[in-house]
């Protein structure tokens, strides 16, 4: 743009800005901002809405749980080397340190027309801006017999960290000598692409020490390992020879809880001692119920500049619930990054500024192949204005060359820092 053109344009803009300035200043502190869900996306959004507004925005976080329990690292609880307490953080730092109002409740309904949310307790709240980060829902009905089997505790998911994580470890520890642990993986996209393969490592690592004739059977609906494939295969062959059997293209369609048997779409039934069945996943229930899941009735399409739902104005959706951009994983790291772009965009919008036209996201994801050695995958995603999506930068990102203890230290460093960044 030449200078004359700029001056001409800016004169118009200046007039506009002058007119807007009082309104803009007034909007930010007056607006009621509600955040649904205190996970990686929601907690970070709440905190950064306060930080980016220099503590002027009014932010209320609605979350049913009393404390945050991290899914990242929770596979180590299943493998027996760490406790759930180590990956649990309180929510009250967000209120004490950052002035966020926290309501311990869950949202049962969103009325986008009236800009109201209804809580399970019956209370209603109005909003000017709503941030929705409810994570995933597990479609227990996508596999015959699973809903009941899961209710009865015969099969566990442990894909939302909490009591089931501990219960699954106990089932593995109580497994008969030489027994089989079966893990089923749904077709991608699902929460945490490398997560199931890390889990296979953790269970094998436990069995190697406590039940060396025990087996891990991985039934994967996908064509091949979805993330870090070569690294996992090498670790399995070298560290757990003969222990992990991997079967790609194995889609589980039914569970016979009584006989502890899995029914597969094509192959013969499989019997195992401990069943960890991960069904198809979709956006958290509240997003679906509110009519936000406009991508195959499963995920939420968003405008990637501000993470506003394409279905509803002033509702910004983050984290696992969204329809991802190419090569964007459903990860906690990514949810935290979505939150910062959305928080900055909301602060800008309420201030009367255009949102940042060139946001950036990164992802790093560490997987433990035993209790100390780790491999990673990393990527950088720059906004592409022409295609209105995020694209990874050619030549950037990548994998570890091999598992290492140094990366194991960094993995814990990552966890402690992201917990502090999101909740501290």
């Amino acid at each position, binding site marked *: 743009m030449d200078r004359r053109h700029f001056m001409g344009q800016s004169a118009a803009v200046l007039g506009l800005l002058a007119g807007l300035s009082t309104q*803009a200043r007034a909007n930010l502190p007056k607006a009621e901002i509600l955040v649904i869900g205190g996970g990686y996306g929601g907690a970070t959004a709440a905190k950064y809405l306060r930080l980016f507004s220099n503590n002027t925005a009014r932010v209320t976080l609605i979350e049913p749980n009393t404390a945050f329990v991290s899914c990242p690292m929770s596979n180590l609880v299943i493998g027996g080397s760490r406790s759930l307490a180590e990956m649990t953080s309180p929510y009250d730092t967000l209120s004490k340190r950052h002035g966020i109002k926290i309501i311990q409740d869950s949202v049962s309904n969103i009325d986008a027309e009236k800009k109201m949310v209804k809580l399970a307790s019956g209370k209603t709240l109005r909003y000017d801006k709503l941030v929705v980060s409810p994570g995933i829902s597990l479609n227990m009905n996508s596999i015959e017999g699973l809903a009941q089997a899961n209710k009865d505790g015969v099969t566990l998911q442990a894909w939302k960290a909490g009591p089931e994580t501990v219960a699954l470890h106990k089932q593995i520890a109580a497994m008969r000598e030489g027994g089989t642990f079966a893990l089923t993986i749904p077709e991608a996209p699902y929460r945490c692409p490398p997560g199931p393969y890390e889990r296979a490592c953790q269970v094998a690592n436990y069995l190697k020490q406590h039940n060396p004739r025990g087996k891990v059977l991985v039934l994967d609906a996908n064509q091949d390992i979805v993330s870090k494939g070569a690294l996992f295969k090498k670790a399995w062959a070298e560290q757990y020879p003969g222990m992990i059997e991997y079967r790609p293209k194995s889609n589980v369609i039914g569970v016979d809880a009584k006989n502890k048997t899995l029914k597969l779409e094509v192959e013969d039934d499989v019997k195992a001692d401990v069943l960890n069945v991960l069904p198809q996943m979709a956006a958290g229930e509240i997003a679906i119920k509110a009519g936000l899941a406009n991508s195959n009735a499963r995920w939420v399409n968003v405008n990637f500049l501000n993470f506003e739902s394409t279905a509803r104005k002033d509702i910004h959706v983050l984290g696992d619930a969204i329809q991802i951009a190419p090569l964007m994983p459903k990860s906690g790291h990514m949810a935290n990054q979505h939150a910062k772009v959305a928080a900055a965009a909301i*602060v800008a919008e309420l201030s009367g500024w255009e949102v*940042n036209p060139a946001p950036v996201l990164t992802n790093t994801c560490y997987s433990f192949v035993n209790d100390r050695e780790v491999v990673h995958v990393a990527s950088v995603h720059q906004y592409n204005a022409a295609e209105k999506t995020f694209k990874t*930068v050619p030549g950037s990102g990548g994998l570890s060359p091999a598992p290492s203890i140094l990366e194991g230290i960094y993995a814990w460093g990552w966890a402690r820092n992201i917990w502090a*960044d999101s909740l501290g």
Partner: protein
Amino acid sequence: MQVKYLKPILVASAMVGLSQWSGLSMAQTADQLYKRSLSATCANCHGTDGKGVVDGGMPLINNLTSEQMLAKLKAYKSGALEGTIMPQLAKGYTDEQLTTIANQLGKKQ
């Protein structure tokens, strides 16, 4: 109605002679917000505003000056400096973005 995002240097040059314009500080804040949100992409691993968990296992960056930080980021990007994740991440940012981050997070002398 929204206004266009303005690059700070252009805004500053446009401001010359326009004293008493109340939007000036606002434009600076918009730019500041952009810089803060870009730098926040580092916070997952290195802490909010670059203040990482002490003895948390992740290398701390808040002892670096902006100059030192930029030199390091550029060395990761060029491959001159080895590392696990940082050489891969640094290659994803433009030089301008790395400069912004270093100015934002580096220790002020």
